[in-house]
């Protein structure tokens, strides 16, 4: 899983490199590729927190389940608020 996150980071970097090259030659696809890379990058720490949550759930360590949920809420709530505001 850690390996997958490493690979995800390098894929994000490859997307950003490709996006940067496209931007320099003025290709219209540049913003799309750049934002895809940025989103992939943003998602990696969220996945690490989810992994910690699964670990503490499995260990029935409720104090740390609660702490991890607080952390997760900080990452997910602003996103949800934004997408809800787009939907309405």
């Amino acid at each position: 899983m850690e390996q997958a996150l490493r690979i995800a980071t390098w894929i994000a970097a490859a997307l950003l490199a490709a996006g940067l090259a496209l931007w320099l030659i003025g290709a219209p696809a540049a913003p799309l590729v750049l934002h895809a890379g940025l989103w992939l990058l943003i998602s990696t720490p969220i996945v690490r927190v989810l992994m910690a949550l699964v670990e503490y759930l499995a260990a029935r360590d409720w104090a740390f389940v609660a702490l991890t949920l607080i952390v997760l809420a900080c990452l997910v709530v602003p996103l949800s608020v934004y997408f809800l505001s787009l939907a309405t």
Partner: protein
Amino acid sequence: MTLLLLLGTLAVSAGAGCLGALLGLGGGIFIVPFLHFVIGLPFASATAVSLVTIIATSSVTATNPGQRQLTNMKLGILLEAFSAPAAVASAYWATAISEPNLRRVFGVAAIGIAIVMLTRLNKRNVVLDPAFAIGSLGGRFFEAESAAVVSYRVKRLPVACASSVLAGILSGLIGIGGGIIKVPVLNAWCGVPLRAAAATSAFMIGVTVVASAIPYYLRGDVVPHYAAATVLGVLAGGRAGIWLMPRVTARRLKVLMAAMLLAVAISSLIKAGW
């Protein structure tokens, strides 16, 4: 011209990424002043680009196999429960603060951290006795310098929690990961060895900066092509830093970092009109 600015950004981010990997910091404290003062991006954009960049440094250092045994996951999650809410709140709050005031916050923060670094050069905080009780939050790891498994326990937890709130606030305001606050505090006051503090910080800052970055990103403050240049720069520099890690001593790193911090802080305060 744009190409030149982007190449300069790549080079500076590589330097920041290298130093960041060595100390478990994202390098934001060097990226923000560069983007704002040298490239001329608005402070909010410099902050936003820096935050996104730090995610990359954190992901690469935190998932490095050598770093993993050093990472204290429980301590990291506990402190993030303080940093992440503070980071989200201050990322929204930042829009209400003027640029000169943000520069002042930045300068003062950098000076404070440099002083802490310089006054705590020789702390190592490790116990060589394998039977040493580490408590519920402590840790053990193999340390090459002692050629043995070393243990530590976390002391003064409230200090660590308070510094995590401060780190979160500064993350949302001035685009740093907060490792620059947590590493010295954990090392100097809370009994965590520098390398364990740095590895744990590499995990924590990734979470803190995502909490700060999302509001900035949703406001459209991230300039994608600059973000691409800084991310690629820190990734390259981060690899160099990981390679250098066994070859430099913690003491020399601290002196180097404190000197750079003071230079950045003073120039930031001058630009803010003191």
